[in-house]
């Protein structure tokens, strides 16, 4: 990483690579394993260049075996390593579900042996990937005690949260939104810094209603807020950043101020993270609400392939604006 490099704007995907690179330089226990991550540099080039720098023992191309990738990560983490396991698409994490939810998540509780690993991969739609290359599987994992679930929306968070995830003593599932890989960028500060797991960020302050969201939908919410501003509706946008453990205080602070809440996520509706956020609000600041809570999410269907179908499926700024107008007028 040259100073010239640091002065340039860094994309979300490059920020992830920088986090891995810097952590591998800092700590020789850190290594990466996954399918096509070494010679090829990863399906999305997240790990491009790491093999040349760190060698095949720390940048390990594996068989097409998600259970073995995560299982081997679990075992090596139990031995004191800090593995980062890549799922080529977050959709394929289902193939490693048992290793994550039954082995990694429960190990500390059952035996006292922590499993400090990161399982990371590209999630999300908007790229016409169809039902098996577009999913947002975070809710499956948020329901599993023992895991932490992170989903960054910015290059800064992608780098800082991934570093925090690698340093965390518990298993962290790290979902990168593939739509953001090369679409968002910013100038990152030099030096070594992390973004703490479990802390939300207010992306836009507002008085009239809160949009609680994460991942690529943060940008959708900000687009919507801009439109709403012109209509005299002042929306606050809260980026949850960590989905487990939720930053309940940040949720309560925002809703306590605006008294109206939209929960926005790209994942499907029923049993989603939005349901949990709604439960937190209902339990802890019921009397602050001046209107029903509204969820803006994908419908309860698989992610469809054809562009008009996917566009219909995905939440967007228009849908958020419609919900916000209804709430503002409640």
């Amino acid at each position, binding site marked *: 990483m040259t100073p010239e490099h640091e002065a340039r704007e860094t994309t979300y995907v490059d920020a992830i690579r920088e986090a891995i690179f810097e952590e591998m330089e800092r700590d020789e226990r850190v*290594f990466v394993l996954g399918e096509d991550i070494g010679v090829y540099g990863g399906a999305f080039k997240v790990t491009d260049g790491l093999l040349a720098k760190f060698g095949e*023992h*720390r940048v390990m191309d*594996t*068989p097409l*075996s*998600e*259970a*073995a*990738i*995560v*299982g*081997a*990560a*679990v*075992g*090596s*983490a*139990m*031995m*004191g*390593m800090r593995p980062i396991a890549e799922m080529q698409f977050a959709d394929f994490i289902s193939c490693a579900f*048992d*290793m994550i939810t*039954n*082995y990694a998540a*429960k*190990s*500390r*509780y*059952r*035996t*006292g*042996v*922590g499993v400090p690993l990161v399982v990371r991969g590209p999630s999300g739609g908007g790229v016409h990937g169809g039902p098996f290359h577009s999913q947002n599987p975070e809710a499956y994992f948020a329901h599993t*005690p*023992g895991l*932490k679930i992170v989903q960054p929306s910015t290059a800064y968070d992608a780098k800082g949260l991934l570093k925090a995830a690698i340093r*965390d*003593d*518990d298993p962290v599932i790290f979902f990168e939104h593939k739509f953001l890989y090369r679409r968002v960028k910013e100038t990152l500060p030099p030096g070594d810094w992390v973004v703490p797991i479990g802390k939300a960020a207010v992306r836009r302050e507002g008085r009239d209603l809160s949009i609680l969201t994460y991942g690529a939908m943060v940008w959708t919410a900000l687009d919507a807020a801009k439109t709403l501003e012109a209509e005299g509706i002042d929306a606050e946008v809260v980026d949850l950043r960590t989905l487990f*453990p939720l930053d309940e205080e940040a949720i309560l602070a925002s809703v306590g101020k605006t008294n109206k809440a939209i929960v926005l996520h790209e994942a499907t509706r029923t049993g989603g993270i939005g349901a949990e956020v709604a439960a937190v609000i209902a*339990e*802890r*600041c019921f*009397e*602050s609400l001046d209107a029903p809570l509204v969820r803006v999410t994908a419908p309860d269907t698989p992610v469809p392939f054809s562009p008009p179908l996917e566009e219909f499926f995905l939440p967007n700024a228009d849908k958020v604006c419609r919900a916000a107008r209804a709430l503002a007028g409640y």
Partner: protein
Amino acid sequence: MAELAPEQKLELYRFMRLNRTLEEKLVNLYRQGKVVGGLYRSLGQEATSVGTAYALSKGDIVGPLIRNMGSVLVMGFTARDILAQHMARASSPSAGKDCNLHFGTPDTGMVSAIAMLGALVPVMAGIALGARMQKKSLVAMTYIGDGGTSTGAFHEGANFAAVQKLPLVIVAENNGWAYSTPFRRQTAARSLADRAVAYGMPGETVDGNDVLAVFDAARRAVERARTGGGPTLIEAKTYRMKGHAEHDGQSYVPGEELSEWAARDPLERYARVLLAEGTDPSRLHDIDAEIAARVESDARAVEQSPFPAPESAVRGVYAEGVAEVEPAIVRRRW
């Protein structure tokens, strides 16, 4: 055949006898309602567990399943540990968080199974991988039943270990039954050792009721693993002499098979070998008596030991913090 000193041969006997006596005590406690949950026997399979784990050295790590009590004992865990696990006491290695033989830490030479069979194979491959990355020379050994070899996790783990040439010994314990499912409904393969061909690793079938033969096969596989020769699949042919668990009367098992295998009981068989080699019968009797007394006193001590504190249920999920039990209802006042 490997050369074992006379004292080592007696030690093998001691572990097998302890395995059996301890389980018989657990049956007794189970019938008194003192064992919490199910009880899974390894009757008739003691030689496989003891003989394989005995081939390991200090620093090696084993990943046993529920019928590998013998391996757990060989690795240095005590009757008291196992009794406390089955009686769900605070003093158990899992502190009451998990049952039966589901416990262990790499630094104590054992990694805990989970109930999802096959899962330990990739995890133990990871143990071997993590050790190799840290230049620790150790061998990992794990077990799988005939049923468990049908899982995807078994296949993925075996394949990964072979590709990475990891120091892993996989002991496929073919005891004929996966719950009520016989071997022929589990696989069309002739033997579990045949599966090794597909992974490009050596495979061998051994008489799982002959502790010396088991030890010898395991010793060679451990040596191969330790010297960079990669993983080995050992099929130990044995027989599950009891049901899946104590509640299961195994009505589906043909009686003649049971009597056939009863005649091959690994403990009696090994005792005959020792006596034929000139071991004084009183040595074996002394071991039996000492173990019986020890297990009785351990069981009494565990019975008198406390259950875990209820509130410890919400601790230890994460490195930091306590799981929320119930939300406080907060009424805001203006």
